[in-house]
């Protein structure tokens, strides 16, 4: 205990008496190391989390209901939605009818039958524009033209990724419509039925599924698809704020709705590739951050080594007057620990008070995501502990090297 108290006194006094600029520089290095550790993986993971958020906000909702594996629609969708209406935790839901369709553009200006049609195949979604907007804010994704009006027939929304001018290099793979703008007409064919629609708006969301789809009012889709029932393919549910999705999902299952459809929370419905990419980015970020830790530990090692070497004579004198060398080693470990702690604390403040709010307000604009900075408290704690332990070691080793030397040689300054 006394050894520790003396080590603490020596360590604190060394920091107090050291040059303020030296202390600032070391803490700055530690803070940058900590930020490197948090920010690199945080931004990489944030790209995927941004993509997940977009998927949750613009497509899947908090709970997504889809058809059972051996069914083509949600069984007795109206009965299903009546149960949804009775659950107070559900803020809104939107029923989606989906069909595969062909959309042809520029058919009026096609000069002869030998010329290639300007046509794409894609997913057409029948929606109640008001309910869809309430759940996913679809109207906010309109980048050209206007959003659908429930009272109008003969209008559709085209996802930006169906258009040549938005898809750039992707066009050769996915196919796209050329020279289509709001106000133009396109021909939609579902099965044997074809109808001409005016393009009312172009939508573009970070959720690729939305930007690849075509939206029309649900009654038009049911009519065009010769549907005689109101059974739909998908229901996206938005919950009240701070509601546990799993709890609501279980409530729905307990109501017997699992017999009619597959009910999953957003997290359960996430595409596996997103989860895989997130994990990979996490590993990659940690690897890059680890290099930062090694650099920081070498920095601390050098600083402590030079410090201990410069004080070698006093270390010798302390040992000479009977101070246990462990107390001297503790002094340097405490010094390194204080630097790591101070740097990490500054890093935490910068991360949580500045960087995360900043990236939330100004996400990095990637084609597939609004990249944010993700720093889960548990992950941050683990990285902090890792940095702290490695820094303590980096402080201990040079102190041990110097303190274990011959006492008299140290006092006399002999090698």
């Amino acid at each position, binding site marked *: 205990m*006394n*050894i520790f*108290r*003396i080590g603490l*006194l*020596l360590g604190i*006094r*060394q920091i*107090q*008496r050291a040059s303020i600029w030296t202390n600032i520089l070391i803490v700055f290095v530690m803070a940058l190391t900590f930020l490197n550790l948090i920010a690199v993986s945080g931004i990489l993971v944030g790209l995927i989390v941004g993509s997940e958020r977009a998927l949750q906000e613009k497509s899947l909702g908090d709970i997504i209901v889809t058809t059972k594996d051996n069914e083509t629609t949600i069984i007795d969708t109206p009965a299903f939605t009546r149960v949804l209406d009775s659950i107070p935790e559900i803020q809104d839901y939107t029923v989606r009818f989906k069909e595969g369709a062909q959309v042809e553009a520029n058919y009026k200006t096609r000069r002869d039958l030998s010329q290639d049609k300007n046509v794409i195949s894609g997913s057409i979604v029948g929606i109640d524009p008001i309910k869809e907007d309430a759940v996913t804010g679809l109207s906010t994704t309109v980048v050209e033209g206007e959003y659908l009006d429930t009272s109008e027939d003969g209008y559709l929304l085209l996802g930006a990724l169906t258009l040549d001018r938005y898809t750039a290099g992707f066009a050769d793979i996915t196919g796209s419509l050329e020279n289509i703008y709001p106000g133009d007409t396109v021909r939609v064919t579902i099965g044997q039925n074809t109808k001409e629609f005016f393009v009312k708006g172009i939508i573009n969301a970070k959720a690729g599924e939305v930007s690849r789809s075509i939206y029309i009012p649900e009654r038009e889709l049911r009519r065009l698809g010769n549907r005689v029932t109101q059974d739909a393919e998908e229901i996206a549910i938005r919950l009240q704020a701070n509601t546990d999705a799993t709890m609501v999902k279980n409530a729905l299952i307990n109501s017997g709705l699992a017999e009619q459809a597959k009910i999953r929370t957003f997290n359960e419905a996430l595409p596996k590739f997103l989860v895989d990419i997130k994990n990979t980015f996490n590993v990659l970020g940690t690897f890059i951050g680890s290099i930062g830790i090694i650099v920081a530990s070498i920095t601390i090692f050098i600083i402590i080594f030079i410090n201990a070497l410069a004080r070698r*004579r*006093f270390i010798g*004198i*302390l*040992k*000479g*007057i*009977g*101070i*246990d*060398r462990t*107390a001297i080693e503790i002094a340097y470990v405490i010094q390194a620990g204080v630097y790591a702690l101070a740097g990490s604390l500054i890093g935490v403040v910068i991360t949580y008070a500045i960087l995360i709010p900043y990236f939330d307000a100004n996400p990095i604009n990637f084609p597939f995501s609004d990249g944010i900075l993700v720093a889960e408290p548990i992950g941050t704690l683990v990285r902090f502990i890792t940095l702290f332990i490695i820094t303590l070691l980096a402080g201990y080793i040079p102190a041990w090297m110097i303190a274990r030397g011959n*006492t*008299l040689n140290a*006092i006399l300054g002999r090698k």
Partner: protein
Amino acid sequence: MSQTSTPIITAVGITKSFGSGDLFTTILKGIDVTIMQGEFVAIMGKSGAGKSTLMYQLSVLDEPTSGTLTIAGESIERKNEQERTQFRLQTLGYVFQDYALVPDLNAEENVMIPLVMRGMNWTEAKTVAQAAIAAVGLPTKYKNLPSELSGGEQQRIAVARAVAGKPKILFADEPTANLDSFSSQQVIDLITSLNRDFGQTIVMVTHEREYALGCNRIIHMEDGLIIREEILKPM
């Protein structure tokens, strides 16, 4: 020496060599010396005579190449590094040539740390340290850093640190080497009074004969050997 005195240091056949091959040098060539409890001994000699080297062996700061050393009834040569450090803490006090205070600690803390290391609690160590600093005539300098003290004041704090724990033996290695004559005399008076008033056993290396005049005995060295012992004041 009185018949009741008991030996506190007994060194027999102490040698110290450095280097190897062509660079092999023997500094101490077989020293036999006994120092009695309560005795004040000065070691004198020209530069290179081996006086500091002898003091390092006697003060357990160094290990002799050969020979046996018994201090306060304990055989030293069987002790490992940690035991030697512990022995120095419990039994010996040191005043080095150039003050050797820890620059980051103030005067009080410099004196306190060996006391805390011995197991004294913080408050008690502080009280003892302040008393020791007051005893060397610097009662207003507790909180001063070494850099805020003159050379003479630093050496007096070093003496306070050395004696605050009441060591059995005080070693002083040319304690006046870096001081002006006034400060030197103050430090010598202080060390002499410790022996005179408290019976402190003291072994001091010095170049200056005038500073050794308060000793009981002067050991004269030349070329790694004791060539003469001079009794000034029988115990």
